[in-house]
């Protein structure tokens, strides 16, 4: 309120006092509802206050909406508004109306500030509307369309027809005021600076084969596992066949374990033989024992003695490429006793 009008400054202390008094006596709700006593006076009072508030709001909105007019017009519109506010303020008794009054004051003083700045600038003042008019005619605005209301400057300016290249005309002239650099371009053009948006179609194509591959994979695996197991079982049975065959040929002489499993031409075949033979021991179809020279021997188990769970023993056989060669030379093995399966491709 400090910056306000002189007359309202004079009014203010009185009003402030009376407001305080009223507040002390009568705790009437600020919102202006009728009191519980239903006093007719109070009702009159609240409608009166409502009226004051609406008139204040009207004033504020006229100031805000006609801002440009108020600044341009030589008349005293601001003064008129302030005068009206002054008369209104005489009837203001409570905080709510006073708040609206101060709000109007803020808006009005803002306007005043702008008016003052116009005053300060020496020389010719710059009028945006005139500027727009001149610029538009420079840009080649066609006035023919609205000859009638040509004089009403502000309305007319937005009604004419601008040529297609209006802004180019203006730009080429005022480019002379700019000391800007010419744009740099690659001779053969350039990629867009932004990364291209990923195309959906590509992703769809990619998705389809992965699905199919997923479906194939499990079936393939199953097959492999089955065949592998079958192959092991078959191989174990085949070796048992060999063992029984050699035993039947000469039941009295023991079969040397190493001579039995070692394949002189293939280390990996040897390892496979050892692996498969171990199944025979596990299932109790073959037994291993040491002969007089403490060399391991192997022989099939007779059907009658096959089931003897208490006699279960374990031993680990290790073989390396080097020991395979030593054993092969020591036993002078030239032929393998277990012939590799003919049909196997591995």
């Amino acid at each position, binding site marked *: 309120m400090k910056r306000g009008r002189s007359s309202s400054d004079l009014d203010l202390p009185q009003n402030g006092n009376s407001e305080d008094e009223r507040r002390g006596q009568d705790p009437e709700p600020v919102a202006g509802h009728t009191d519980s006593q239903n006093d007719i006076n109070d009702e009159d009072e609240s409608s009166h206050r409502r009226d004051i508030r609406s008139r204040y709001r009207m004033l504020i909105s006229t100031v805000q909406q006609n*801002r440009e007019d108020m600044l341009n017009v030589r008349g005293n519109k601001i003064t008129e508004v302030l005068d009206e506010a002054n008369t209104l303020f005489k009837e203001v008794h409570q905080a709510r109306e006073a708040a609206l009054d101060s709000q109007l004051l803020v808006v009005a003083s803002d306007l005043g500030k702008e008016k003052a700045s116009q005053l300060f600038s020496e*020389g010719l003042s710059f009028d945006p509307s005139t500027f727009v008019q001149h610029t538009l005619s420079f840009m080649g605005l066609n006035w023919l369309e609205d000859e009638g209301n040509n004089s009403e400057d502000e309305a007319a300016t937005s009604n004419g027809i601008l040529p297609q290249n209006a802004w*180019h005309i203006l*730009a080429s002239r005022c480019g*002379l005021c700019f000391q800007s*650099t010419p744009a740099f371009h690659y001779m053969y053009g350039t990629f867009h600076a932004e990364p291209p948006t990923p195309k959906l179609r590509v992703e769809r194509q990619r998705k389809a084969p992965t699905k199919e591959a997923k479906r194939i994979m499990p079936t393939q695996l199953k097959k492999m596992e089955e065949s592998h197991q079958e192959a092991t079982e078959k191989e174990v049975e085949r070796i048992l066949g060999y063992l029984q065959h050699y035993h039947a040929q000469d039941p009295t002489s023991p079969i040397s374990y190493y001579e039995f499993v070692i394949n002189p031409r293939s280390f990996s075949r040897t390892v496979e033989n050892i692996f498969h033979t171990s199944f025979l021991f596990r299932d109790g179809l073959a037994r291993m024992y040491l002969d007089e020279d403490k060399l391991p021997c192997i022989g099939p188990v007779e059907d009658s003695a096959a089931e003897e769970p208490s006699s279960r023993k374990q031993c680990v056989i290790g073989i390396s490429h080097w020991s395979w060669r030593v054993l092969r030379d020591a036993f002078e093995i030239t032929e393998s006793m277990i012939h590799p399966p003919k049909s196997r491709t591995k």
Partner: protein
Amino acid sequence: MTHRKSSAKRSASVMEEDDDDSRLTQPSTSQVQKGTEKLTKAQIDEKTTELVQYFLVKDQKKLPVRRAEIVKNVLKEYKNVFQEIMNGAQQRFEQVFGLKVVEIDAKNHVYILINKLEPVEGDQRINSSNPKTGLLFVILSLVYMKGGVIPEGLVWNTLKKMQVDPGEKHQEFGDVKKLVTDEFVRQRYLEYTKIPHTEPVKYEFSWGQRAEVEISKLKILKFLGELHNQDPQRWSQQYKEATGQASASMSQPSTSTQR
């Protein structure tokens, strides 16, 4: 080589970027020597070329270049010799391209390129293809002639009278509001700042740092005089300011930083 690299990296991780910037502002001669002695001239030249290209590409969109950006994207482990490479680039811009590197913000070290050569009348290449220049001219003139700072409402009202409505899509400018308050602001042609104590929030426009160095106020004033068919000197206040700008840029031709 490896030793130099690793020490540079270590120092980068230790120092804050801004802190680093301030240290680099005035590199002592010993620092420069220390940085350069292990680099060959070819290496420096190559980096300089990269920096020149970086500036040119950035300038395509009229975006300013920050020093931190240069260090991060171009120089990397060569950051110790920033000044040396920058000087080289500056020299090339002036001698080869006829452009000038101007530091528009000495605090944050922001650089732009401007044309060293004055635009010549009849030269249609300059900006004639870009209608945005016209729009920019209207706004900048308005701001300048109305005392340097104006509420955004005045800008929008004026543009509306020129059939450019910020609320609608314009056939030439597209989203006008975005162009004016975002693109022009990022290019540093305009400043768009909140007016304090406004509810709802209002903004005001003023000249950006690029506009201050790139645009001649005197030329704007002369053009406005042409438009209004009157002597530009009659806008005495603005004329005084314009001649002030012209003499300021004349007195220090190499580094005309406005703020």
